[in-house]
């Protein structure tokens, strides 16, 4: 080392310059709960069980999603639709119980691809944190999308 290098001081001043530059830099951190980054278009998040245009659940409990699931996260119990439930379920057979274990799910989207009824899509946000394991088993109460009135969704298309 030559004299200037052995003095340390020029190097220290240089280092101080670098840190003070960072001091005034814009901070890239996102303050998560208050401010959320937008999801990408093909992001696969929380599942939702879809309804058709009349607000009936599309799922017919065929079990293809459960079969295709590589993580074996999906379980369901099928039931037969009664006469009074015609406006609730689209098909004659429906899922009375439909559960996805979010700790097992790998969000691969194979259930989405397997579904012949276009009933399941991974179009939600992240699965949020929770305290106990059993709370990660999401039932129909969390998965089925809320009932909607299609005429109010697209007012200009309907008379």
């Amino acid at each position, binding site marked *: 080392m030559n004299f200037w290098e052995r003095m340390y001081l020029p190097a*220290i001043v240089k*280092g*101080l310059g*670098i*840190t003070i530059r*960072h*001091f005034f*830099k814009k*901070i890239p951190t996102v303050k998560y709960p208050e401010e959320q980054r937008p999801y990408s278009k093909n992001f696969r998040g929380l599942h939702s069980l879809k309804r058709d245009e009349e607000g009936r659940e599309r799922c017919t409990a065929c079990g293809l999603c459960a079969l295709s699931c590589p993580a074996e996260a999906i379980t369901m119990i099928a039931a037969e639709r009664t006469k009074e439930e015609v406006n609730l379920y689209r098909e004659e057979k429906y899922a009375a119980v439909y559960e996805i274990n979010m700790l097992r799910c790998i969000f691969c989207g194979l259930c989405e691809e397997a579904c012949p009824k276009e009933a399941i899509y991974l179009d939600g946000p992240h699965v949020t944190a929770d305290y106990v394991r059993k709370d990660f088993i999401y039932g129909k109460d969390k998965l089925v999308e809320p009932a909607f009135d299609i005429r109010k969704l697209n007012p200009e298309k309907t008379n």
Partner: protein
Amino acid sequence: MEGAFILEKLILVVIVFTISLVIAMYSTLAERKIAGFMQDRHGPNRAGFGGILQPLCDGGKFFFKEEIIPAGAHKPLFILGPTLAIITACISSAVIPWGQTLTIGGREVVLQVADINVGVLYIFGVVALGVYGIMLGGWASNNKFSLMGAIRAASQSISYEIPMGLSIIALLMVSGTLSMGDIVAQQSGFVNWNIWAQPLGFLIFMVCAFAECNRVPFDLPECETELIGGYHTEYSSMKLGLYMFSEYINMFVSSALMAALYFGGYNFPFMYELGLSQNWITIIGVLVFFLKIFGFIFFFMWVRWTLPRFRYDQLMGLGWKILIPLAIANIVLTAVVIVVKDTYF
């Protein structure tokens, strides 16, 4: 008269004590914030607006933590360690002149707790005492890492007190007094600041102040990567808090010392030319002094988040082989300049 004097000093002591504690408290937050900004992060920002309550949360946490005294520890000394550290940290601010005189109701109040005529020596004595807190704590923990940290602290502070003292000798040759009040009063205005007369002395003093405060790059007594926590490995709860606190108070006091000895203390440019009354000059002077202190505290933190830690042999080499010869050269240089100036000008 006497009663009023005692009351005045008592109030001043309480104010200085409170200010140094509050500044030490918020230095912890400032340190974490500055660390955050320098690493492109936010730093703590959850407790209160922008993290303003974070020190209170930390303090509360320290009080509620379990207090562990190791079975093999020497209990009285184990308790004495942090106590001594915080006491020595607090009493060294007694001789620092915070401002000029305030006239309150016809009574002149000097904003300095004690203007003793050996103020600089007093500070040196207290600073040297400060290492006992670390040493006793480290030894009493009955832990090899703590002992290593204590040994390092002792040898480091002995090594760096010598160049610190030598750099102060050169300053005393310029000022001709040991009283802190007089040293600061001499530096009125801007051109009379001691930094212009003693730039090398200031550099040596500052490096030694970093070492005496056990701050990065001289934080070998703590040295978490080698010695876990160094001298406070075995400490928990508020005893650890006291050690941390004393470190920040030391930082505040040595910032005040550097500002007072070399950067004119409460003096600011054009202080008499602006036509202000004495009370206003004093008040602005106090604010300016604190501004300088905050500047130095910021510099302490800035350096901490810039430099890595020295290796132990590098530390000793810097102290004995570079700083001491430099400080002696500085004394000789100062002496020659003073003699030449007195004889020919």
